[in-house]
């Protein structure tokens, strides 16, 4: 099975490339790379022993079965629709798109062309989070009534802070992981959205911090902190934490807790060295299995759309300083 990568703009592309080449699936090859940035594309093709294509159409005419799309958020729509028209199965980096209409169109085109559209929410594959889902489902903590979540990060810079390419800052980048987790854990949807968003840490044109406050259809209350508030000295890129309160008990979850702390004199840094399993690898394994077996994707385009709707509502709420009822679009 031949797979291609569309753009290394998002740093996760490196991780996905590495996992496409690993020993779990000897029958998979990373045979083609397209990148708008020729220099980067050629460097990646050399690194991953692949062929670089300067022309996207030529790339899509090759016999690759599937593509992993890691272009800038605003380019997801173009790349997903083009890949779908060329009958390629798709794993798209999150967020699915920067606009709801774009996401809708992407889903529609993939459906029309009968290709898989999976959104990259690797947190679902974290062994920690899988165990959390088992515990929640087993009823050990009763009914979940509240979730206090964080997906903090360091400020990524580059195109992430260029609104025309990213669609937005920390809110666009970091609400979706926890939002997807909440929807997946509880099989629930968002009823109302309130958000405080601001740019308080860096001199950039997009928001770098905020808090999102939600009520779900079931009445469960949720807050998500998507801030790029981790200092440069923070020992890792960020965090994924959820405090879950249930009618019978609580779960305190830190998805990145399994690490050794490394006091690194050479680099004058304290660093977390994770030793838990690599969730990007599991995401790639799942996607390959999905393409091979023809089954429905574990994480659908609709999952991408529903989380994007919350992000967009958060921006509107922060602007209007009101809590807004979420209106879900039909697909």
């Amino acid at each position, binding site marked *: 099975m031949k797979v291609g990568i569309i753009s290394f703009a998002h740093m996760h592309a490196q991780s996905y490339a590495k996992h496409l080449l690993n020993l779990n699936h000897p029958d998979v090859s990373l045979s083609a790379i397209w990148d708008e940035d020729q220099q980067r594309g050629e460097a990646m093709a050399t690194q991953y022993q692949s062929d670089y294509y300067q022309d996207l159409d030529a790339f899509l005419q090759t016999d690759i079965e599937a593509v992993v799309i890691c272009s800038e958020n605003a380019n997801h729509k173009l790349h997903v629709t083009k890949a779908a028209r060329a009958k390629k199965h798709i794993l798209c980096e999150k967020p699915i798109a920067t606009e709801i209409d774009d996401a809708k169109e992407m889903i529609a085109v993939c459906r029309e062309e009968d290709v898989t559209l999976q959104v990259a929410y690797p947190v679902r594959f974290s062994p920690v989070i899988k165990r959390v889902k088992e515990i929640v489902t087993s009823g050990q903590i009763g009914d979940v009534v509240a979730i206090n979540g964080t997906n903090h990060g360091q400020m990524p810079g580059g195109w992430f802070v260029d609104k025309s390419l990213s669609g937005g800052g920390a809110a666009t980048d970091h609400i979706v992981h926890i939002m997807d987790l909440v929807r997946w854990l509880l099989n629930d949807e968002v009823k109302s959205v309130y958000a*405080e968003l601001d740019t*308080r840490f860096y001199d950039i044109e997009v928001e770098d911090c*905020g808090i999102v*406050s939600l009520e779900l259809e079931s009445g469960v*209350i949720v*807050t998500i*902190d998507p801030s790029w508030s981790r200092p440069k000295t923070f020992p890792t890129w960020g965090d994924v934490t959820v405090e879950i*309160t249930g009618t019978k008990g609580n779960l305190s979850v830190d998805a990145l807790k399994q690490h050794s702390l490394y006091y690194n004199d050479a680099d004058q840094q304290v660093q977390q060295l994770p030793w838990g399993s690599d969730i990007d690898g599991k995401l790639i394994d799942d996607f390959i299995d999905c393409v091979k077996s023809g089954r429905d994707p574990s994480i659908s385009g609709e999952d991408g759309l529903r989380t994007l709707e919350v992000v967009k509502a958060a921006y509107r709420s922060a602007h209007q300083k*009101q809590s807004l009822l979420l209106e879900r679009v039909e697909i």
Partner: protein
Amino acid sequence: MLKVVVVGLGKIGQRHLDNWEQIDGCEIVGLVSRNQYQLDRFGKKYQAKTGFELKGLLNRIDADVVDICLPTYLHFTNVKAAAEAKVNIICEKPLALHVKEAREMIHICQQNQVQLYVGQTLRFFPAYAEAHNQVKNGAIGNPGVVRLSRGTAYPGEKSSWYGDASKSGGVILDLGVHDFDWLIWTFGDVERVMARHIQKRLDSENEWEYSLVTLRMANGTIAHVELSWAKQGLETSFEIAGDKGMLVNSSKETVPIQLMNRSETSAASYLPNNQLEESPFLKQLSHFKDCLEGKTEPIVTAKDSAKAIEVAEAAILSASLGQPVNLVEKGALR
């Protein structure tokens, strides 16, 4: 000798008695409780006069300060009684159920020329006092997002006054006034508050109450406060992120001694808390004594306390409306 009357002999009243006992230059002269057994027990221990109600007791004895350790809904009448008897007052937090009531209490004390101090004990907790100072000294630069969390087991006995919001204000007021006061102390006034709140459903066995409060301070800082009456023991944490650094602290991570006894069935028992030296309650009561003796100015005033109640009230209102409540617009701060 500072002559002290303690009103209320529940858990907090007894804790205050323990602390007063450790402070030089004070004497327990009176005790008020509805519980005859406790009155006899502690009256004998401290050789203090006892009574079922404060007003009558104050007619019989000479006191310098009344320390009110009663449920929140009883604060008003007792503060009023003490003030009218011209006795200074230390009152447990929250000062009142509503900011209007708190302001009236402050006014009554001013008219009667007595001091009113409120036990915003969090200001005397070393980690929180230190964090306040670090922020003020610029350690984190410009504050961006502040995350605070406070949780305890469901307070009191089953169906105690805590569970009745008209008596306790619920978790948002009862726990929230600690963190709201600390936020205002450290970052200034609150501009806007949005709260989500959820409590025991009719069909659930256990009692619990929980709230997630989002605040926007007038200086632009965004704050998030988790308030839980659904934990097993006291759990607190803060994370203060600014453009030059971040301060992080949690009660779970600052327990220096963990005691394990193999003969016990429970997995592990912890020493009660992470306060090894002078308890924050002792510091607080000593401080109020110094203030009453004119040695120093109060770290926290009744007006500060009223502001924290105002924020809690706005949060409660917000949770019921499902919309943010704007404090500045209401003109309530003035």
